[in-house]
Each structure stands twice: as C-alpha cells, then as structure tokens.
C-alpha cells in the first residue's frame, strides 16, 4: 500500500527536512489503521527524538493530523483504516506573529 506523507509547519524537520515522503507500507492481512501507521513511522522514519512527534499511542499535543485534507477527527482518528493513495499530513500549529 502506498501513501504520501507530508510534514508541514515545522513537522518536516522531524523527517530530516524532507517534506514529501511517499511510503509503501508492507502488506498485512488486516488493513492498516492510523494507530499502526504512527508506530510504523516512529520505527522507520523517526529514529531520533520521537518524543517530538508521538506521545503515548497518538501524536503529541500541537500536531494536527490531516487525512486527505480533512482533520483526522472527522475520519475516526487512530481507528481510521488507510486506503491506497491516501494523503496523510502532519502539521505543527504555528504560534508566531
């Protein structure tokens, strides 16, 4: 299954400065859900300082997760089952003015 990942608003820094991260997830019998994706990202993309990205089994406060340009709260958050070609974006809230 392939799914482009993006990090904006500073979150790209967590991905070694790379904004677009097309990934192909290993196939498994059950469909991938967001909870599993977060674990996979932490293991495969964020080797250093994962605490800047995750807290418990979700993202840390101040990061908003978007699935296909919608707040993931509208999609079931951690339980959302990923479809092929889904676009997942992690954004950090900005505070500067």
């Amino acid at each position: 299954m392939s799914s482009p990942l993006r990090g904006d608003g500073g979150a790209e820094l967590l991905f070694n400065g790379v904004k677009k991260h097309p990934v192909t997830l290993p196939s498994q019998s059950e469909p991938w859900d967001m909870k599993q994706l977060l674990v996979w990202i932490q293991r495969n993309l964020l080797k250093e300082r994962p605490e800047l990205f995750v807290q418990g089994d979700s993202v840390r406060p101040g990061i908003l997760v978007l699935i296909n340009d919608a707040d993931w709260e509208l999609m079931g958050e951690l339980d959302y089952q990923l479809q092929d070609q889904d676009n997942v974006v992690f954004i950090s809230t900005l505070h500067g003015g």
Partner: protein
Amino acid sequence: MAQEVCGLKAQLREKEEEIAALKNKLAQLEKSRAASVELHHRVMPLTPLTGKAALSNEDIMRYSRQLLLPELGVQGQLNLSKTSVLIVGCGGLGCPLAQYLAAAGVGRLGLLDYDEVELSNLHRQVLHGEENQGQAKALSAASAVQRLNSTVECIPYHLQLSPENALQLIQQYDIVADCSDNVPTRYLVNDACVLSGKPLVSASALRMEGQLTVYNYHGGPCYRCLYPVPPPPETVTNCSDGGVLGVVPGIMGCFQALEVLKIASGQGSSCGQQLVMFDAQDARFRLIRLRPKQASCAVCGENPSVTRLVDYEAFCGSAATDKCRKLNLLSKEQRITVQDYKSIMDSAEPHLLLDVRPLVEVDICHLPSSLNIPLSSLEERKREHLQLLRERVSQLKHQMAGDCQPPVYVICKQGNDSQKAVQILEKMSGSEVDRVTVKDICGGLTAWARGIDRTFPQY
C-alpha cells in the same frame, strides 16, 4: 463706478473662498488632533460606538471603489462603521491587518501590544518606521493608521493582555483578531472570546508558512476544541529563533483583514470550521476541513471546566512573550562568562571553541577559530561531525603536555543550545570522544557582542 463695485464683489468672493478653505483646513487639523491618539496603559470603559446613519459625500468618494461591490454596498459600509475590532499584537500580522481595516472604514480599532519597536521588527511590521524605534508598538501603529484614515477611532493599548484585564477589554469589542506571538496568549484570547461570545479571527506565521482559522464563530469550534492540550514548550519555535520572511505574516494579516471585513460588513466568513494553510515556498493555499465544536471542550463544551480565565503561563508552561526563554541546565562549575573566555583567548591557552548553531546562523557571524558542529548533529551523532570532533580533540591533546583533559568551550546565540550541547558532550566524553572538560559560555554570542566586542553583529 459699476466696474469698481464689480471688482470689489469679485475680490470679496475670492477672500470668502479663501476664508472657507482656511476654516476647512483648521477643522481638519483639529479633527486629526482630537483623533490623535492617546496611549492607554490600562483597560478603560469606552463610550458605545454609534456608527454612521448615512454616508457623507466624503465617505462616498473615499469608499467609492468598494461601495461599487454588490457584496459590500452602502449597507455593508455602514455596518463597518458600526463595528469595533480588537487587534491583539501589532507585529507582522497586526500591522497589515490594522492598515486594511482602517483603510476600509471600520468604526473603531483597538490596537494592543506590550512591546516597543525594534530594528529587527521592521522587515515585517510595516506600520513602524525607523524613527519609531523604542516607541510603544501600539502607539506607532495607531499613529500610522490615523494618518491613513482619520475618521477611524484608534485606541492603542500599551499593556500585556492578562487574565485580569482580558474579559473587560474583549467585551468592549465586536470582533477580535489574534495576531499574538506566543502560546499562552493564544489560549487566553480564545477563552476570553468564548466567555464573551466574540468571533476570533486567528492567524499565525513562521518561516515560510502561515495558518488561519476563525474560531468561536456561528457554532463552530474554538481553539481549545482543536488543541485541548498545549504543546510542550520545547517544541514551540518563535520568529526570533526560527526566522520568518516578512511577507508571509503580511499575506496572513491581509487574509485576516479580509475575514474581519466580511464578518463586520455582514457577508460572513467561510473559515469558521476551516483551516487555511499557506505554503510560501510552493506558493500554495490548502483548505482543511476541521472538526466541529467539541462537546468535550473545556471552555466551549457541554460541561465546561474553564468558566473564568485561568493562569495561562502555568497552563502552557511558558511565558506570554516571544522573547527567548533562558534555560538553566548546568551547574555554576560547568559555565564560564564571556569575560572568562576573553582572557582564555587572550592568553592563547590551548582549547577548542565549539559553535553549535545551525550553519545558516554561522554564515551571519562567528568567532574566528571556532569549530561549527550544530546541536542537531550532536544529538543525532552525525558520523562526519563526530569524526571531525575526535580529530580536533586529539590534535589538542597532542598539543598539550601530560595526560590532561582538553578544554572545550561551547557557544551558541543566546546560551540555551550550548547548555544542551554541554550535556551531550559530557555523555560522549571518554567514550565516543577522548576525555574532555566541557564548559558553556554563558549568554552566547549575544553576551559577547554586548560585553566584549560591541562591533560584533547581533541578530
């Protein structure tokens, strides 16, 4: 005789016209002086804003190009004159926002900022000029706006918004715009808007990105619905650390002006449950559908736990300014002053000076003979950088007699990152690199520029 009468009459008419012109000029001057702004240091009750019953000929001429829009029209313009808007923060967002709101004819503008104008503000805070350095930003912004449109009532507040004054202030305005630069203020403004039922047009910008949402508007979510828990303070980057291209908050502040004008004129905003994200690098706007108002929200939910304003600095674990926090991670023995380092330098004592700032900052300025390894490279144990460090330490060891531990002095911009680097280097010492004595230079290059070398650039 008749000719003389005619001539005198003509002369009289001329003088009368001249007098009328002078009277008009005097009235204008008096009006602008009466409207000339007085700085408020605390929140005071305001007289109710009446607005205009009808447009004068001068109004019609001034606003003609927007009156022609069916979306605005005469009624929209009259609505603007009846609306008061509070702008929290007269910086990169607040300046263009205040400018366009005043130009468009909003009735009353509250301009709040606790800070004074500095040279490093001018690239983005475009209402302030060189001559305004040191002046209260609220006053500088208000005078600039008043020059643009003297018919707009401007109230500059030189104060820090706090749980004690926020409700009294916000209750007096119809629409609030959050142009602030720190997390505690964003929660404070949100809660005060929810508790007083005001729409909140909120924007933010950093580096090459901007975000905008209208909160607490037509049953939509509030800031807390989206962000129930504040971010850990160490993950928050401000403009003085992360940098920002001036035009980016400029674009977002203009976007805020657009949404405020639509709400004030009666057209309404479509950003109530929507996040606008601006990526300046790709020149791209994205519209994100947001969650609705949350029943579980602590302030706007069904059983709110926040029913009055609380201590937001404690809630967020950070101060309500964008000034840099001063970390204190090390003991006294692990730190030296810039004066100490100056005498080490002058005595040519063998040592390694390690500059842990990112390369982009080292390009701005650095001390000669410093070795640059960014903090992030130390944290990630970047192989080529560790190799470089090992080489320099062993060179130093050869240079020094006996089996002493070579001294390493760590410097950065303000003395925060350098302390983190000292902690990392102490862990590495004796394992990943030869044993070293690591010390932090207190206050970093900023302290160096202030205390040792006044010609050294500050940024």
